[in-house]
């Protein structure tokens, strides 16, 4: 079984400053870490490896210095690491990032793709599911427990606002995971020694035979107009009774607030 874990190198702070003119993240002077949610994806991959003898490859798209993060995952026990790095990838939004990662995963081949639920810098939670769409494979987001993996399918718990769903999907599949899933392991000394010597494999857009127009800033349709935290709306009314009573009640409420 082949597993690919996608990780992202992010600034080490949950309060990233934003450049008000360009509406992009200010990364200068902030130390980089592996996106914390991605570490849970790594742990999930390594746990599957421990149980089922899978091969784990860690993948990231980023500048050459992202190698440090890949090496950290090698030190935790991943078998191989791939860095997608090319000037052509610079400025990618979630669409272009997912497009590029999906191409790399197809190129490398995987039965299970694991991602953190979102990155702590952008917080979009879009790249994981979008990779699955580009690959035309199923995805399950917010995975809080892996129930079982058989030869050609996987059963997981998906964390919901209230409780969880049990979801089954055929392989290959993409999962995005939440921190409730597990506790990431420590990097081992043997792993660190191996990581120190390991030559990280690099892939460019030419290796993946991609259309340059779909890459980087050129291939990114997103234009950020403004960034703000959405208002949390917690008010809700639960209507009880028979279906007829519920309908009557709903109509009177909608009338009262002049919706109908």
């Amino acid at each position, binding site marked *: 079984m082949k597993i690919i874990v996608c990780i992202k190198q992010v600034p080490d702070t949950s309060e990233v400053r934003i450049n008000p003119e360009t509406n992009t993240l200010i990364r200068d002077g902030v130390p980089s870490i592996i996106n914390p949610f991605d570490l849970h994806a790594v742990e999930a991959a390594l746990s599957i490896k421990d149980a089922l003898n899978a091969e784990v490859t860690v993948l990231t798209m980023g500048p050459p210095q992202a190698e440090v993060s890949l090496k950290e995952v090698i030190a935790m026990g991943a078998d191989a690491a791939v860095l997608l790095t090319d000037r052509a990838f610079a400025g990618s939004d979630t669409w272009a990032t997912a497009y590029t990662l999906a191409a790399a995963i197809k190129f490398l081949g995987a039965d299970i793709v694991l991602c953190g639920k979102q990155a702590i810098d952008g917080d979009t939670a879009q790249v994981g599911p979008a990779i699955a769409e580009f690959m035309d494979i199923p995805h399950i987001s917010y995975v809080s427990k892996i129930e079982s993996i058989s030869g050609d399918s996987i059963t997981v718990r998906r964390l919901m606002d209230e409780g969880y769903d049990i979801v089954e999907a055929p392989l290959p599949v993409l999962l995005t995971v939440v921190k409730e899933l597990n506790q990431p*392991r*420590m*990097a081992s000394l*043997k792993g660190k020694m191996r990581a120190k010597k390991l030559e990280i494999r690099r892939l460019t857009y030419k290796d993946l035979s991609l259309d340059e127009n779909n890459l980087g800033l050129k291939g990114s349709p997103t234009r950020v107009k403004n960034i703000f935290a959405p208002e949390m709306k917690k008010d809700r009314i639960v209507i009880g009774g028979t279906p007829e009573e519920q309908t009557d009640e709903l109509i009177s409420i909608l009338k009262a607030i002049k919706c109908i």
Partner: protein
Amino acid sequence: MDYFLDEDQVMIRDTARQIAEEKIVPVRAELDEKEQFPSEIIKFLAQADMFGLFIPEEYGGLGKGALELCLAVEELSRACLGVSTSYAANALGTYPILLFGTEEQKKKYLPDIASGKRLVAFGLTEANAGSDAAGIQTTATKSGTEYILNGTKQWITNGGEAEIYTVIAMTDKSRGARGASALIVEKDTPGFTFGKKEKKMGIRASSTCELVFDDCHVPKDNILGRDGMGFIVAMKTLDKSRTGVGAQGVGVAQGAFEEAGKFARSRVQFEKPIISFQAIQHMLADMAIQIEAARALVYSVARYVDSGAKDITKVSAIAKTFATDIAMRVTTDALQVMGGSGYMRDYPVEKMMRDAKILQIYEGTNQIQRNVICQSLIKEFSRNV
């Protein structure tokens, strides 16, 4: 100060420091309060390969030596001596197998020890055999293909938690110290049970309890070295492990010193931070002097041990004694710098001071260490006459 550590040594120190800061510091007060064995932290140490540091690579370890072990122990001790005692006692219990084990014994036990799958404990002390190790009363009677153990070991670190025990017992009482033998006893061997868990002043995260042997049958093949070599096994083991106790002293002293420094900078009296007063400055300076001297000594001795030198008894005793005596002084002074705050359990220094005391007592009291040192000195003096 730069001790010219190589890349691997820096990596080992930094890994231990990361575990100490991320995993130990947040829970040390609770572990102390509840007298709870740090099973979770042991798991993290195992994941990080910390248990295999000094075990040869052919048995699944990293093939490093005393210096690397000291670096790890120092960092763990800087955060919590209770945790570092559990970790260091594992090395203490492993040395008899490493130094005297047969190839079969090493193959059977060392890989599990290196991976942290099975913890080890060393069983020497008894109610009537402490400083006088020759007073051992636990017996191991040969019977066919087995030894039958009877007796009680006292104050055994990792007792109950460890799965492998290296135990010193008398195989021939009439021969005194030369009638002692070292045996490997596995947990769950019939006739082997654990007595009461001790309630201690400090290092309360570590487990200390009695090992009770009541007609406990152990295969003859579990003997380490030969029949009658038990005392030598114990002494060579202690020679190897002593420097590590010194590293514990350096670590706990460093931890207390840092707390005192931080406090002295922020505590204001007479409208000034107390670090601006000479009384405090001199105390901090004295702490720094003692810690750096102890660290330099411990690292030098560890390097000497790693050089393969045979005459390590005296120098390892010197390192243990000096570094643990200064640990007691430095932790006491750190608490004094912090005054009433230092005495409160809201700060970690009162625990460090309680913990530090054991270092002057276990693995040979510092009085016994001085005996050991002077026995070597007498030999040296007579040679030079």
